[in-house]
């Protein structure tokens, strides 16, 4: 991992990221014929390869949607698996076009990294997992515990804040990758494993006996997860931002993967704008008029993607909760496409 970041750093230093500075990401992607998408090294539900090597997950669907909008082909993607600590360097150096890797939106990341968050694909929060045998019912009972964590994440700082704020002592052991942290937790090196709650459910599936472990009720932080792009290319920023909004809008309007062609024939003014039969909103983005229908036909609307990857239709079985549409008690909301 050290070697990767070193190479990436040298790439930045040597100015190999010329296309980054010249801000022509869309053109670069089209010329290359492929979208380069930074994902995790394997987090079920968000980005993980199946047994045939196909990447699936909520974060992966964002990249597939972008590829569908640009190429009308959701398979024209090169996935680049990245550890938490290498992800920003990969984006800065121009190795990837978009980082869609369960990354928390914070002010410092939005400003000092030379990159921007384009939206929130999943509203998450940090939680704790412990062995049932410890008979712990609350995170406030974790005084003096050993905690395993993946390094290079907001998780490490939240953890320090939470234990300090509650006057509790703890020992932190930080590992380079998530899998190493989970393995150390399972082997008994730590009492507690901590990451975003969605990650806890996903990682619990990897353990030998998932039923022996319990996720504690406390959620100690706000972790809005979303995709990131480089500074300095507003067109590309808009494309990635509105790809997510197109998926959310599709859910609001009831457009699904199955009925997209049917709905495209609708003569409601709103539908006509979305499907590009009226106006040229897609072209204003630098895409085609039928961009929304390309996206929805490739990955479905936001709700479909959610259910398929992390919701009731998946092994994770996470409830929609605050990730439901604003009109259904959640906070997912898209500005109007007009």
């Amino acid at each position: 991992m050290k070697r990767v970041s070193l190479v990436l750093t040298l790439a930045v230093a040597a100015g190999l990221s010329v296309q980054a500075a010249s801000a022509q990401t869309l053109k670069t992607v089209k010329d290359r014929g492929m979208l380069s998408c930074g994902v995790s090294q394997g987090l079920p539900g968000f980005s993980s390869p199946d047994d045939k090597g196909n990447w699936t997950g909520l974060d992966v669907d964002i990249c597939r949607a972008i590829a569908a909008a640009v190429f009308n082909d959701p398979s024209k993607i090169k996935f680049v698996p990245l550890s938490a600590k290498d992800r920003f360097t990969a984006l800065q150096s121009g190795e990837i076009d978009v980082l869609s890797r369960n990354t928390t939106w914070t002010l410092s990341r939005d400003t000092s990294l030379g990159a921007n968050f384009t939206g929130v694909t999943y509203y998450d929060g940090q939680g704790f997992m412990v062995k049932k045998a410890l008979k712990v019912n609350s995170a406030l009972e974790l005084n003096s515990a050993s905690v395993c964590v993946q390094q290079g994440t907001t998780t490490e700082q939240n953890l320090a804040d939470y234990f300090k704020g509650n006057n509790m002592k703890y020992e932190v052991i930080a590992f380079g990758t998530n899998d190493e942290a989970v393995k150390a937790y399972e082997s008994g090196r730590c009492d507690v494993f901590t990451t975003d709650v969605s990650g806890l459910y996903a990682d619990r599936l990897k353990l030998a006996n998932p039923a022996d472990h319990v996720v504690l009720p406390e959620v100690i932080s706000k972790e809005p997860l979303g995709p990131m792009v480089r500074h300095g290319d507003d067109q590309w920023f808009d494309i990635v931002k509105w790809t997510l909004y197109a998926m959310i809008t599709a859910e609001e309007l009831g457009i699904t993967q199955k009925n997209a062609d049917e709905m495209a024939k609708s003569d409601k003014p709103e539908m006509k704008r979305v499907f590009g039969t009226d106006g040229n909103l897609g072209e204003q983005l630098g895409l085609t008029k039928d961009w929304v229908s390309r996206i929805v036909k490739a990955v479905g609307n936001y709700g479909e993607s959610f259910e398929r990857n992390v919701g009731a239709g998946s092994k994770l079985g996470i409830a929609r909760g605050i990730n439901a549409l604003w009109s259904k008690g959640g906070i997912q909301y898209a500005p109007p496409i007009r």
Partner: protein
Amino acid sequence: MAIEPRKPPSQLLPKLQRALGGSAGWSGFVIQLVFVAALAWIAYEIVANARANLQAQRITAGFGFMVNTAGFDVSQNLIAYSGSDNYIRVFLVGLLNTLLVSVIGIFFATVIGFLVALGRLSPNWLLSRIAGGYVELIRNLPLLFQILFWYLAVLAALPNPRQSISVLDTFFLSNRGLVIPKPIGEPGFEPFVIALLIAIVAAIALWRYSRRLLFQSGKVIKVWPYALGLVIVLPLLATQIFGAPVKFEIPALKGFNFSGGSRVIPEFVALTLALSTYTASFIAEIVRAGILSVHKGQMEAGSSLGLQRGSVLRLIVIPQALRVILPPLTNQYLNLTKNSTLAVAIGYPDLVSVFAGTTLSQTGQAIEIIGITMGVYLVISLVTSAIMSFYGWRIGRSMG
């Protein structure tokens, strides 16, 4: 008629020509000048390009981030550290952890390496085969694999803290590491240390006196009983007068972990074990080669003087072998230090893990942080090889 000796032609210009341009003369000099200029231009382009790109993407540059609050904790810190300290402190904590594992690793690697080499050269069949087997097994397995083996297969198999293996209820071994009583200074501490120092100085003086006596008059006197007596009696006396130097804080199980006492974390143990046994297998071969490079006649000459095998090795063979051993041994020390960066695989908080890892990820200052980290390893390596060169120079001098 006197013949005026002709002045020799001035040698200055041709000498200069040769010095600057080699055998090709001035044209060689021009080529070199162009080459150096090209190198300088490339270096300038790299720096200028990086600056321009950083500015275009509005990535913060510079070292201002070092004084920001880190906000995360580290599992092993030799100096006081908490999450509210700044990144400079994080850097120092990581650096000290790297130095700790390197110094202790080098010490054990050297001791094990010398012992294995002597074992391999031993006339005892079984001993030499065991030593040979050790070398072939350990040096041929990848180091990362060995680190993971010690960490995941050996240390993780230890019981949890509640079922820890304890000795006299003061030492506890569990999968959280080894917990031992922690010495805490008492009023009697300073007199104790002073008494100990005086005793050591006196013992050394005594030994030097006996050496001089030996060389001047050939008289042999046994000094070690007196020296040992000094070192034991003086500090004991100090303790009797001023009270106990330290008291021990006994660890006790409290909640999930032990509280009180000092703890050696398993990550440190696994890394040190793997690094020192791995490097020792190379050192063993280097030492063996060094000893074999000393002519057999030296050994025989020593034996014919009536010296025992141990004395022959210590006084005659090893000093000569060291001249061969030192340069490759220095390489192994440097390798061990650099290999300690594999710590990140098992969560040992070394410099690369906490600084080039967490700090880099939290601040995004890739160029600055990787630059500092590379600089640190360069300095550590250069200092190590300077120390070894100095040692080699002293040996060379003492042998005339």
